[in-house]
């Protein structure tokens, strides 16, 4: 009898979390997968089962492949660069430095700005002719560059914005982790005669691994999730050169109203993210030392 009551308690305690998870995560995910096997319902034509037709269309869709590789490149460049920069900045502002809190604030400032605002600031930087970058390079005699209007530069220009925004956020986590490393370790290493590099490589970096794992998972999620600046800066152009997967999903769903194909694209994103998350946990977990 008591046993059964415990079960009821357990379910009651779990239910708020379960209801939220199912309502907002699991059921939508499953219905997305379900929808990807049907055609898009239009007002005058109901949806019908089409099997794998949407997936065949996906494989043949040049735009999808371009957007897919854009997203991969975007992740491959922005994640390591923003994490490395964050670590560098954290070590820099952790040291004894005059005006330390000012530098910390300056590094953290981009994080508190909404991405839309950030994108508008960078639009001003990038504008050919009278933008900040062109004004400076023009004064030095360099020709004007159309950063966002050139298909070879557009994606890179978008990446810079996201690195600029992300690095400060990750720095805060590294800074907190650095300050929790006991000073005894540094003193001990100094007595042993370890160089600063050896100390960093053998002591600091391994101790920061839990933070690195946390930060890198966040970086992966953000690199697929944050596309607001694409809306403001390029709308995916020129000719999809700066379009990312999530942006393409939004376009397909709410501009073309092709909800079935948007579901198919979402399934791809879902699978991609699950694989990466799984890989990160399996691979990195072994190298992370929790104290």
């Amino acid at each position, binding site marked *: 009898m008591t046993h059964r009551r415990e079960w009821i308690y357990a379910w009651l305690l779990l239910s708020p979390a379960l209801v939220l998870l199912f309502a907002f995560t699991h059921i939508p995910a499953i219905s997305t997968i379900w929808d990807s096997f049907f055609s898009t319902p239009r*007002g005058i034509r109901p949806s019908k089962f089409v099997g794998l037709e949407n997936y065949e269309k996906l494989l043949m869709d040049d735009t999808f492949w371009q957007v897919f590789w854009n997203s991969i490149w975007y992740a491959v460049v922005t994640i390591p660069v923003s994490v490395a920069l964050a670590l560098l900045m954290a070590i820099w502002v952790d040291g004894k430095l005059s005006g330390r809190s000012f530098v910390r604030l300056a590094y953290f400032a981009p994080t508190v700005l909404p991405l839309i605002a950030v994108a508008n600031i960078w639009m001003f930087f990038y504008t*050919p002719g*009278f933008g900040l970058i062109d004004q400076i390079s023009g004064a030095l005699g360099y*020709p004007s560059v159309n950063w966002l*209007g050139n298909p070879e530069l557009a994606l890179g220009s978008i990446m810079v914005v996201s690195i600029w925004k992300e690095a400060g956020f990750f720095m805060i986590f590294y800074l907190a982790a650095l300050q929790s490393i006991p000073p005894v370790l540094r003193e001990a290493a100094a007595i042993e005669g370890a160089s600063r590099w050896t100390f960093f490589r053998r002591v600091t970096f391994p101790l920061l691994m839990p933070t690195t794992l946390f930060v890198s998972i966040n970086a992966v999620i953000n690199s697929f999730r944050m596309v607001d600046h694409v809306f403001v800066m390029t709308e995916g152009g*020129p*000719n*999809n050169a700066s379009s990312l997967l999530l942006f393409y999903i939004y376009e397909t769903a*709410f501009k073309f109203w092709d909800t079935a194909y948007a579901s198919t694209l979402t399934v791809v994103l879902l699978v991609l993210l699950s694989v990466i998350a799984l890989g990160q946990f399996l691979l990195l977990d072994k190298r992370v030392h929790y104290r």
Partner: protein
Amino acid sequence: MTFLKTMTTTLSAAALLASTAGSALAVDLQFFFPVAVGGKAADTIQALTDEYAAANPDVKIDAVYAGSYQDTITKTLTAAKGGTPPQLSVILAVDMFSLIEEDAIIPFDGLAKTDEDKAWLTSFYPAFMANSMTGGKTYGIPFQRSTPVLYWNKEAFKDAGLDPNTPPATWEEMVEFGKKLTKTDSNGNVTQWGVRIPSSGFPYWLFQGLTTQNDVILANDAGNKTNFDDPKVAEALQFLVDLSVKHKVMQPGIVEWGSTPKAFFEGQAAMIWTTTGNLTNVRDNAPFDFGVAMLPANKRRGAPTGGGNFYIFKDSTDEQKAASFDFIKWITAPEQAAKWTIATGYVAPRADTWETPAMKDYVAGFPQALVARDQLEYAVAELATYQNQRITTIFNDALEAAITGTKTPADALKEAQAQAEAILKDYR
């Protein structure tokens, strides 16, 4: 006892019915509108709806600012799919086919009962109606309509030794003037471009000016066949590419739409193509004397129309539909349309609006406002097809590929035509 109970229930139900029937006179309308230009547009809409509500106490209108055109159609269609659409909305004229396909709107013809109403339906400029009718039925009423025009910097013209009062009339003249107006500094970097035809976001719209001038139409009236691979379209695209590549009078690559007025004010570009909806903005902010002209001609004069129409949504009661119809009739009437045009720069959609005293005063002091209206004579319907957003995206991608030099105009357009064909063949 049971009988009595039944009786009371029936009676109270009847009373309830009677009271709803009585209150049916008071109609609630929800009205979504977008704002695509800066300034007083939203305030003007609010002021006009308040004025209507004051004159018609039995109608309650909830005017909702719904964001950009894109936001508005997204919100409206989402609401329609959820079963609670607004009763009326201003949405891009070119989204007519999408709205029909979603079975979201009704034609105005069924609501026009009297001869006066029927006459009203035919009182708008034909250039605007081209995007508002299909299959002989009227689905949209022109309201927030525009057309692209050429703005030129008179001071820059004078500095370049050109007549400040003569804009280019042909493509050749635009190139010739552009060459004189393009200035470089001692390092060989351009400080002032001759001409600026923006190509970001929706390059197809201004490009349609070029195709019309080259005497070619991009899609049929039924909205189910495009004509992207016509050699004349490729010629027009080649001309656009040549402006930067061959003649070097325009900034190469994709040119941003949003910063175009700013580039004009800063003297970065001496001639710009942009919407007449920017007229009030340019008038308020240009630090020099400027002129407004029709787009230059090639084989003929030509420009697309643009902007938004009123639509009435299907999922409403008959009273709501009638009230929406009446409101739209009121707000597009000369007095109201004149207020709207003066506040924004949009082209008043009926000839009689231009005869009102308010409009006459306005154009007397600011004759540039007449250019857009006069250009309507040469204007064609803006590119609109079924699956409009997708087809225009395909077309935009092709234009961007050619402008950035990744594909030749002919190849890019041929691919775009094939993609459009694959989508539109189901609609014939």
